[in-house]
């Protein structure tokens, strides 16, 4: 019987990467999961894997910037599982380049996925969590939301905005026992990144060595571990915090 047995969790962007790693850890902990993902074939694969683990799981399509889509996702969770205990806003996007080279709409696009998305998601679950007597929202951010970064004017800007949103939501949610936590992965080696880097593997380790004190990349499972902790009763007094799972990157 897993530590999250009975909990109903909505998780966005779980077709791959951190989202998928989180989904696997949630399933291991016996959570019931409604997840979304952009990539059709990969989402189906994730669904199959979770089902094979014996998890109660639904896959739903979601455009994070669509209020109607969010309503549909919440409804699916409520009709399938009767409640929504946790919302994990993991779906996100990044476009990195020098400010003068970024397209003019880069900021707007990233704000759409990284800020509007979580904003709409939180708005959608709020009344339900309130009625239930509480809930947890985890917004998956990044170290990029805490520090400036060359090439990150739009990305870091959007993530910093997301962080501010999380802190305010935490302040507002307390009275309804709705906790809000911002999760900050550092450099996480996802399948996508591994594919991109497979042509130049020799570049990876030197980059990791210089960027990450622990000299290892993060793995989706590491983020999943932190999420399971945050969803558990052990974390009942945590809200309005930034939790960094970054191998020491922000310790400097």
């Amino acid at each position: 019987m897993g530590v999250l047995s009975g909990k109903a969790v909505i998780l966005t962007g779980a077709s791959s990467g951190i989202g998928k790693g989180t989904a696997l850890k949630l399933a291991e902990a016996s959570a019931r999961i409604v997840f979304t993902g952009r990539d059709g074939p990969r989402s189906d694969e994730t669904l199959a894997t979770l089902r094979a683990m014996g998890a109660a799981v639904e896959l739903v399509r979601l455009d994070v910037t669509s209020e109607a889509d969010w309503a549909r996702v919440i409804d699916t969770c409520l009709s399938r599982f009767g409640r929504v205990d946790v919302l994990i806003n993991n779906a996100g996007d990044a476009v990195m380049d020098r400010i003068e080279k970024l397209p003019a709409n880069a900021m707007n696009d990233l704000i759409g996925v990284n800020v509007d998305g979580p904003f709409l998601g939180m708005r959608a679950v709020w009344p339900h969590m309130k009625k239930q007597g509480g809930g947890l929202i985890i917004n998956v951010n990044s170290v990029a939301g805490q520090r400036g970064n060359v090439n990150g004017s739009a990305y870091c800007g959007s993530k910093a905005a997301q962080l501010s949103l999380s802190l305010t939501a935490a302040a507002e949610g307390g009275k309804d026992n709705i906790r809000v936590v911002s999760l900050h992965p550092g450099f996480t080696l996802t399948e996508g990144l591994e594919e991109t880097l497979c042509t130049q593997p020799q570049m990876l380790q030197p980059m990791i060595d210089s960027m990450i004190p622990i000299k290892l990349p993060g793995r989706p499972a590491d983020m999943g571990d932190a999420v399971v902790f945050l969803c558990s009763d052990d974390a009942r007094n945590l809200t309005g915090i930034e939790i960094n799972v970054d191998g020491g990157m922000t310790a400097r």
Partner: protein
Amino acid sequence: MASFDGKVALVANAGSVIGRAVVKRLAADGAKVMAASSDGSSVSGATKTIVLDVAAQASWESALAGTVAALGRLDILVTIASATYATPKPIAETSLAEFKAVTTPNLEGAFLGLRFGIVKMRELGHGGAVVNVASALATVGLPGQAAYGASANGIRMMTRAAALSCADSTDKIRVNAVQVGLIDGAPESDIVPTLPKDLALARRGTPDDVAAAVAFLASDRASYITGYVLPVDGGLMAA
């Protein structure tokens, strides 16, 4: 699920309110716990107890060696900073001796624990985790408790420096901190006796809340977390 089966923990200041909760939780999670305190008194859940004067190097060396001798290894070290002025006093009315009576056990306690604990873990060669417990009130001024605030901020940054010094993956030693807000029985609850109106969770936390965070950071589930300060404060410092 016991995450610390086969592991050994040394908890300094084990007799404090938070110390007791940490001992209990680590033991419940399967660890053998050496409870160290200034008088070596017993703590529920502890496998053994030992005397430790946190401001004295020799005492730390002997407590660390004593833990390994008695319990076979050392995987987890927890330090807890809890010294404050008995009554709040402004800087203008505090002597240097009174100031140091607080900063010394808090800062030197954490420093010596880190300095000699990390080296001991390196010697033993099987990795480990250190968790420093200090105040969430580290980054704001604390009228009336200047030394406590100063200690907390020092410990916060010391945690990060120590983490960086052993971050190299061959050591597998992680160093993190838990930053404590308004917890029943902890000094912060005296320093802020009335619950702030805008405190998100509108309640005080419990020592068990702190112990849960310590247990998480000490566990393998936090294997990618180092140099991090985890606030257990019900949103106190968020707004």
